[in-house]
Each structure stands twice: as C-alpha cells, then as structure tokens.
C-alpha cells in the first residue's frame, strides 16, 4: 500500500495544474508534482528530478548526495572487514 517507486520527471505538461510526465522503469505516465514544488523549486525546475512516486503523486525529491553517502558507508564497511580479516 505504501510502496513507492523512483521515477524521473522528463517534461512539465501543465505547470498551473502541477502535472508532469515521469519515466518509471522505461514507462511514461502523467504524475502530479504539487508536493515537490515550492517557491525555490518551481515546476520548470523539476525536469530531470528523480522523485519517489506514490499512487500518481511525486511525494519527495530523491537526494542524490544522501543516496551516495549511504552507499559509501556500506562499501566502507566491507573494506574495513576485509582489512580486519573478517
């Protein structure tokens, strides 16, 4: 029920109605972007954004730096274990 899927905004369809086209695993569908838009991030700035899509709504912009940081930490765990002979 609460499942979400990463998608990329590829086009703004109607900025006033907050409608955009997103690509989800190679498939395109219309999504609502009202939850990822604010004064500092207007609709036109959303093209190219990776978002978390839930029942037709982009609910969060995925933070690339945070994703990279999580993966870096996990890679480091493995390296530390190897160095420690684990």
């Amino acid at each position, binding site marked *: 029920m609460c499942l979400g899927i990463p998608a990329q905004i590829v086009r703004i369809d109607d900025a006033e109605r907050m409608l955009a086209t997103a690509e989800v695993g190679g498939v395109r569908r219309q999504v609502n972007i009202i939850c990822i838009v604010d004064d500092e991030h207007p609709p036109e700035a959303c093209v190219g954004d990776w978002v978390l899509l839930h029942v037709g709504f982009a609910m969060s912009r995925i933070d690339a730096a945070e994703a990279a940081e999580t*993966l870096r930490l996990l890679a480091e*765990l493995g390296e530390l274990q190897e160095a420690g002979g684990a």
Partner: protein
Amino acid sequence: MKYVDEFRDRDKAGALRREIAAVTASIGPVRPIQIMEVCGGHTHAIFRYGLEAMLPDMVELVHGPGCPVCVLPTGRVDDCIAIAERPEVILTTFGDAMRVPGSRGSLLQAKANGADIRMVYSPTDALALARQHPDREVVFFGLGFETTMPSTALTVLEAERDGIGNFSVFCNHITIVPTIKAILESPDLRIDGFVGPGHVSMVIGTAPYQFIARQYRKPLVVSGFEPLDVLQSVWMVLRQIAEGRAEIENQYARVVASGGNAAAQRAIGRVYEPREFFEWRGLGSIDYSGVRFRDAYSRFDAERRFAVPGVRIADPQACQCGEVLKGALKPHQCRVFGTACTPETPMGALMVSSEGACAAYYRYAAKAA
C-alpha cells in the same frame, strides 16, 4: 533501475550481515531481541528477499500492523459494499483492497455479483472517471496511512476547485502514531526496537516519533524498502541497543527529510480531522487512529452522502492476529494458520494482503521449508 539496483548489492548485504552478527554478539546472551517493522512494505521486502535468514537466531523480527488493507475491519468492508451496490455508484479502489473479507464477502465477490467496481492506480484516476460519467456517482475507497492520505486530500481539493459534484471518498485513512502507541501500551509487549515506516515518514517527518525514544526508551530507525535499507536499519537498531541508546534515526535520508513534506502536511490538515476512535481488524478500537473529512469537505464524504449500515462486526474468534501483531506468536503458531485461514480464503487481518505477515509467511516461508 537507478536508486533500486544499487540497494540490492550482494557484497554490501554480506558486509551488513557480518556487522549485524558482530553487534548482536556484543549485546551478549539475553532473551531474543525483538525488532518490529511497523510497515507492511518492509514485511513484504523481508520475506521476498529472505532477510530473516540473514539475521542471527537471537534477533527476531516482529511483523507489525502497518498494512492498511489487512487491518480494515469487517464492518467497514460491508459498508463499502453497501455503497458499491447502489445502482448510481461506480466504486473505485486500489487493487489490493478487492479481496478483504466482509461479513457477506469481498469487493471482488460484489463485483462478480454485478456491482460496478473498478480498480484504479491513483485517486486522480477516480476523479477522471467522475468527469467522464457526470450521470453517475463515483466513490473512491480511501485507504492507507499518511503516505496515501495526501493523494486523497489533494484529489478532493482538485474536485472542489473544478466543481465536480459527483465525486466522493469513503474515508478509511489511519494514522501511524496512535497505532505505535497502542502497541507500546499493550501489557504483553516484548519489542526492543522498531524499524520505522519510510514512506509515512516521507510525509510526516521524524519528529512525531520522538515520544517512542523519550517516553518508552525504544530505538526507532526510519528505513527504506530495498534489502540493504532494511538490513542497515536492523543493524542501526541493534547498535543502539548495544550502546544503551534509544534514539530516532533516519536510514532513508535520500527520501525522508526530518521535517517531512510541507505541501502534503498542509493538504492533510486542510481536509481531515481525527476521529475519536477507529476500529482495527485484529487490534480492536484505537483512540484517534483514524481521520474523517472536516465539515467544510462533508460533501465529498461518501459516508455522509450515502447512508451506510455502520454495523460493528467482531473478528472471528479463532483468529490470533492480535498476538501475532504484538510478537507474542509467530504466524504459523496461530491455531488457524494455513488451515481455516489461507491467502485464498483469509479469515484474519494478516492473511489478507501480500503485505500481511501471515500471507507473506505462508507464501515465502512455506516455500522455503
């Protein structure tokens, strides 16, 4: 797929497995450590990827109540079917609600008997149907925790803006905090820490969980849904236990901001108000755990537009969902598991959807055995 495949990496999972074993060993020989994943999405991921088998025997996962389809009580399903059977109504629903049993069958059976019930991917699809069929009443079966709540609220706001009069919602949305509180207050509680819901937190942020750490001294780690996310979150909970900490941590920072999503929270606040109590399948009534529409939006409330029977129907007595939900029993220890209660003919809440602990256990654990 980006942001998916890299969080399923086998080597990193192996590294996490070793860290989990090490930190568990450092906690020393105590009774088994019980960690509850609150969200049904996590339950599904745990079974799909066999994550429990990667944990030491000392660590037990308890599969919590966070599947809104599963916990929907019989009486509400009956009310929904009563609405769907009205000749003017097109009832729209997410697919996973179709098989939830009411006292006279499920939506799927009502559809087979001629009710106009259609599955939709989004509440906006339901609103589009209302635009296409101005001569019919289109009702959306609104279900889910805070993740799904904003989409329903925003769709109602769009219907209001566009003056669409033949659209309404049968609102069964529920909220996470009173639910976790009810679990924490239960006398037979044995949970040592929580893996917290990722997408609910994307909406509400991490602050609403602080009472779990401060008042109940239990750690909670907000988690993503890929295998590495869940393993890392379990590791983070165990580290807190090992170090004697009880804090709210966020493993899923790529999606969850500490303040949540402001636009979604505004939509929720504008459209809904708390119900004094809401009935749950398997858990009974929980105070302030559900929401209804504010008076200003009463015309979009299907419960007020159509009289519903509103009969409260007790859970089947044989079911032990409540004990399984609280970690007192494993799914297969329930007296009707796999016999009277199966995914094809579910009796209890947890057998209903693939996110329910018993259905997941039946499907994956039975296969592995």
